[in-house]
């Protein structure tokens, strides 16, 4: 049998390149974005990347729509912060850098416990059970203040006296690099998982659980084991969070957090391995930066989610991959004008819509600050008709033009897709 069929040497070179670049990026990014805020944001991105990828082991790879993933990141966080305090207090003789691993083991432990119940079922039943368990743990968090610290949460101090090589974990940059190392290895491990027998059978269970039973596999066992592994990585992410923030409160196990993992994993793209990485970066940008920028940020987020579900159900990752495919066939150049047009008209429409949204929010929340508001350098007055009329005009103009460009774009796009199909068939026939 000819082995070259499935061992692509050039692919391996490419893979080495990708992973080296990934490591290099993790190492160099804080040199470019070196402000205090940047380091905080970057640290949170690393944590979110692990969380979203672990969530995608369930959603994208296993077809398990979990509404309670924060249970495993959150409980990992709580166990980790207690472990951190024990390390600080001297009762736990492990290095501070190993605390996230304790979080991982905790996440895994709870996944073994809860997953035994949830993974018995799939589909809607699975989703419902995870939702119920999430609510249960959230309620427990407020009922057991001894462990969860009540409303105030549990705080800790990660500083190490006389740290090895001067690493005290006092400065945020040191924590960033610890997170970066964990991120690299967790991402690599989760990618490796997709290339293993269990990882592939998980895809098979997602696609056709019935058939899996007839080729010798117990689907419940496949889901359960994947769930446990996802719990481990979720716990690591939670543990890193505990180390990073030095405080953990009940919100980390809440439904809002679980919902955020689901939403951003989906936005990033659940069908590709790297999709959730994009989603995690977007998540931190939205939560940390965008939420500062406007009070209506959740509304915008909801709209983005809505449009993604409707027009790009594969998320950002699938958009990238589709365009890479077009580029591979040398046709991307023709779409540049369309893309530029879509972006321009879309921005005009968005500008009008955003002006109106901001005015509504201003009327509801900030009316006491006076009737006028500043929006992207323009002064709007929600009390008068002029601003409303102007924004509506801009919005509808943008929308109309966008639709015109979009129709043209769709024609071009489908023509190119047809060409690619034909070309693929032709190459196959050769």
């Amino acid at each position: 049998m000819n082995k070259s069929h499935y061992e692509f040497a050039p692919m391996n070179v490419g893979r080495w390149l990708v992973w080296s670049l990934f490591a290099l990026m993790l190492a160099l990014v804080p040199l470019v974005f070196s402000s205090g805020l940047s380091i905080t944001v970057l640290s949170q991105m690393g944590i979110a990347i692990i969380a979203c990828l672990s969530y995608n082991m369930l959603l994208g790879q296993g077809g398990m729509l979990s509404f309670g993933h924060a249970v495993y990141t959150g409980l990992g966080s709580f166990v980790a912060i207690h472990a951190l305090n024990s390390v600080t207090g001297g009762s736990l003789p492990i290095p501070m850098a190993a605390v996230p691993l304790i979080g991982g083991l905790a996440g895994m432990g709870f996944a073994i416990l809860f997953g035994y119940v949830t993974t018995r079922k799939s589909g809607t039943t699975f989703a419902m059970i995870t939702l119920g368990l999430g609510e249960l743990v959230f309620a427990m968090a407020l009922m057991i203040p001894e462990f969860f610290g009540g409303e105030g949460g549990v705080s800790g101090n990660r500083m190490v006296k006389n740290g090895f090589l001067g690493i005290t974990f006092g400065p945020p940059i040191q924590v960033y690099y610890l997170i970066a190392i964990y991120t690299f290895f967790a991402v690599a491990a989760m990618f490796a998982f997709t290339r293993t027998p269990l990882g592939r059978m998980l895809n098979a269970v997602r696609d056709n659980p019935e058939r899996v039973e007839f080729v010798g596999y117990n689907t419940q066992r496949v889901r359960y084991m994947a769930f446990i592994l996802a719990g481990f990585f979720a716990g690591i992410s939670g543990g890193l969070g505990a180390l990073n923030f030095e405080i953990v409160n009940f919100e980390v196990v809440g439904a809002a957090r679980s919902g955020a993992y689901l939403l951003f994993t989906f936005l990033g793209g659940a069908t590709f391995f790297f999709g959730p990485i994009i989603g995690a970066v977007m998540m931190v940008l939205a939560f940390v930066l965008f939420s500062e920028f406007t009070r209506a940020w959740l509304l915008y987020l909801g709209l983005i989610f809505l449009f993604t579900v409707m027009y790009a159900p594969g998320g950002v990752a699938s958009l990238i991959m589709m365009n890479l495919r077009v580029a591979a066939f040398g046709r991307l150049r023709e779409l540049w004008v369309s893309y530029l047009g879509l972006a321009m008209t879309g921005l005009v429409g968005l500008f009008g819509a955003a002006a109106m949204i901001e005015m509504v929010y201003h009327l509801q929340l900030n009316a006491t600050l006076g009737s006028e508001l500043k929006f992207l350098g323009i002064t709007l007055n929600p009390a008068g008709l002029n601003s409303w009329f102007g924004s509506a005009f801009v919005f509808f103009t943008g929308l109309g033009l966008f639709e015109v460009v979009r129709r043209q774009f769709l024609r071009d796009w489908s023509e190119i897709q047809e060409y690619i199909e034909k070309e693929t068939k032709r190459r196959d026939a050769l």
Partner: protein
Amino acid sequence: MNASRSSGANPAIALELKDLRKSFGKTEIIRGINLAVTSGERVAIIGPNGAGKSTLFNLISGRFEPTSGDVLLNGQRINGKKPYEINRLGLSRSFQITNIFPKLSVFENLRCSVLWSLGYKYTFFKFLANLDDANDRAEELMEMIKLDKKRDVLGMNLTYAEQRALEIGITIAGGAGVILLDEPTAGMSRSETTRFIKLIKDVTVGKTLLTVEHDMGVVFGLADKIAVVVYGEVIAFDVPEAVRADQRVQEAYLGSPVADQQTGGH
């Protein structure tokens, strides 16, 4: 366990059904089937629509649990076991409605189907790419079912005939000794069917084969023995010539001379 196991222990009998019954609610679909299939035999199960042929397959393969009676695989009682347990004991089945992994490539479909039989179970510390035996076996299967040109095509993008071939490939992948094929040629053209019968013969050499079939051409071209199922009972089980001559079969199922059906399709 209403029968002695002494006859079940006979190594020559690959699959034995003893007074097998299945009811859905008050309706009895399978009404006391007795059948003993010798190892290496090719058996076609024929019968009118609704006779219970597919239900019989579902009972044997563990999709349904019998209401009473026994299924013995190589002398071992398997009724009540889960489909995956039965599969691990060496019985594999295909489905009437194509049942493949639509979002996996042809190669991945086959590789998934060989993993358990090669002992990889739920392994997550070995790379698939390094499992030479699994990869070789998947490639070998792909050539057997003539889909080696479609290696990286997703299951859902194959033509209907190719999907049916993949269905067979998945079924035989684990190397099970007893193969159940549920209407393998359903929906195929005459020429495809002819080609497909040869394929089925080739890939089931040395195996015990049970196949549900409507196409009389397929039945007489493929089977060593024919079992005629009518209203949940086996009314005849013999070599094709004897079944063809059987008066009860003529009346109950075939109705008209067999030659008409052969040329007229099903």
